[in-house]
């Protein structure tokens, strides 16, 4: 009897997920969104456990325990590791979908109708390719694998052929589900394609790629919904798929690039003509003491954080700097470029973790008009997103990319390890401007020194 309630539980779960995402749109309601999301998942799991097909709970219980034991520590990782963690969880989600698809195939084939087989092939293809692609992304973000793009001749031809053969195997299975030997071919090629897809992707493109994998993991779950004829799976998968899609579009737009260009363009290779030797251009250096003096004399400061801040784990020192300057009556804002860091919103969570109020964090469109009034723009580990060449140099690989107008501030201070060009291997014109001062060193150490100088010399 009780199983009659299951469809209602699923319906309530679907509504909860939609509400969860709706409430996540702004900070004051966001936590309520998470809670309603948890409630939705509890309804979905509870409803599923009531289903009459389930004859034993032993393995399910064991898997719940194992998942919790792994899941809790994964939620406790430091905020600097969030991009890696996200890649890893995309891998788990996609693997679950692919494994269920595999099990369903062997349970049903060859008595499987064409449409179900098509959805199943799509589920398995997307699931397995997202699994290995996410693991590769994890490896690159964790720096187990080299973060630089690796390219070779005819790479795109090879990759597209693998995908083509995998899709062909899937299509043949739709026509002839009795050709079960093709299923492992589909699975293995999907796994291989996932690896090959990420090999040419560099660190700077990770925000787009992680978003895209997010979308694929969702679509794979939606495909599972078609196989199992379960609307809840279809709806939740579609929500996830559209979320990943929107984020990837935002990331692409913020780099003025297309999907195809991100996936097949192998951005960040050494560019011909970049870093021309012989042309020694002059930069002006400054010490932490001088930097502190300039900051003290300012009334408006805009901090521009980038991946370098995350790598140096400098966010807590940046908070101390924020506190010191704010106490001295200086207006401090943070300018966040959409692709700063290694995943969408990366800088925001780091700064929030360090207790910097979120109303100080400004998006690119809002903050760009404020740079001309700023006394100091302090660039911390950001590079390409501040390069004025994106505005006027047609030969630059980043030409057309929307940038933060850092060069319009009265004084620009750049904290940087060395003069090595950034990820994309492009020299940054910003560093050679008359108004630019370079403060060399590790972001955490430099900001720490500036804070110390401010505390020591702040006798006015």
């Amino acid at each position, binding site marked *: 009897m009780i199983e009659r309630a299951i469809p209602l539980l699923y319906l309530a779960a679907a509504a909860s997920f939609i509400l969860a995402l709706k409430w996540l749109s702004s900070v004051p309601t966001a936590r309520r969104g998470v809670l309603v999301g948890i409630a939705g998942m509890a309804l979905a799991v509870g409803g599923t456990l009531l289903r009459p097909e389930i*004859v034993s709970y032993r*393995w399910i219980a064991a898997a719940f325990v194992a998942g919790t034991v792994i899941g809790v520590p994964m939620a406790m990782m430091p905020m600097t590791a969030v991009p890696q963690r996200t890649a890893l969880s995309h891998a*788990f989600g996609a693997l679950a979908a692919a494994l269920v698809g595999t099990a369903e195939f062997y349970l049903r084939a060859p008595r499987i109708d064409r449409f179900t087989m098509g959805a199943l092939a799509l589920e398995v293809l997307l699931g397995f390719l997202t699994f290995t692609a996410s693991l590769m992304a994890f490896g690159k973000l964790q720096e187990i694998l080299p973060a630089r793009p690796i390219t070779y001749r005819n790479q795109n031809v090879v990759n597209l052929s693998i995908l083509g053969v995998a899709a062909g195997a899937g299509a043949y299975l739709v026509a002839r589900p009795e050709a079960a030997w093709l299923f492992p071919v589909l699975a293995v090629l999907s796994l291989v394609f996932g690896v090959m897809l990420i090999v040419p992707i560099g660190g700077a493109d990770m925000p787009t790629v992680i978003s895209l994998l997010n979308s694929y993991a969702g679509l794979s779950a939606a495909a599972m919904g078609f196989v199992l004829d379960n609307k809840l799976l279809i709806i939740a998968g579609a929500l996830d798929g559209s979320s990943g899609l929107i984020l990837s579009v935002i990331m692409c737009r913020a780099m003025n690039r297309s999907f195809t260009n991100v996936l097949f363009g192998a951005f960040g290779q050494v560019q011909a003509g970049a870093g021309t030797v012989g042309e020694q251009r002059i930069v002006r250096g400054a010490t932490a003491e001088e930097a502190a003096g300039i900051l003290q004399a300012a009334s408006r400061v805009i901090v521009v954080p980038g991946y370098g801040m995350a790598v140096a784990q400098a966010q807590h020192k940046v908070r101390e700097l924020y506190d010191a300057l704010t106490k001295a009556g200086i207006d401090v804002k943070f300018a966040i470029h959409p692709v700063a860091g290694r995943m969408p919103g990366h800088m925001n969570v780091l700064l929030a973790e360090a207790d910097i109020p979120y109303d100080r964090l400004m998006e690119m469109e809002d903050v760009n008009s404020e740079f001309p009034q700023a006394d100091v723009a302090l660039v911390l580990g950001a590079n390409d997103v501040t390069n004025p060449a994106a505005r006027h140099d047609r030969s630059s690989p980043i030409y057309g990319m929307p940038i933060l107008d850092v060069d319009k501030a009265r004084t620009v201070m750049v904290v940087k390890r060395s003069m090595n060009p950034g990820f994309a291997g492009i020299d940054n014109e910003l560093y050679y401007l008359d108004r630019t001062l370079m403060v060399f060193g590790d972001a955490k150490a430099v900001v720490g020194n500036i804070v110390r100088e401010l505390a020591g010399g702040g006798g006015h």
Partner: protein
Amino acid sequence: MSPELEQGLYAFLLATFVGLEIIRRVSPLLHTPLMSLTNAISAIAVVGSIVVAGEQKTTLSTVLGTVAVACSTINIVGGYLITYRMLRMFRKSGKDKP
């Protein structure tokens, strides 16, 4: 086209449009929590996994289903927990952390 398929396609279409409209409104400030939350939601694959693991039709399907339940559980537990942790960090100026 079977009625189930037709309904499924309608559900997919409408959910995609709802998703696009809702998620377009999410502040860029919260893009990282958004991704971890959608990650937890897409662990809805747990529904299919539980059935495959629990119906115990073949050894292969039980093993695959069990692994799938474990993977989904990782994302459910980890995804909601880290999203909640992140959101607790966001505070406005002049306010202490709750």
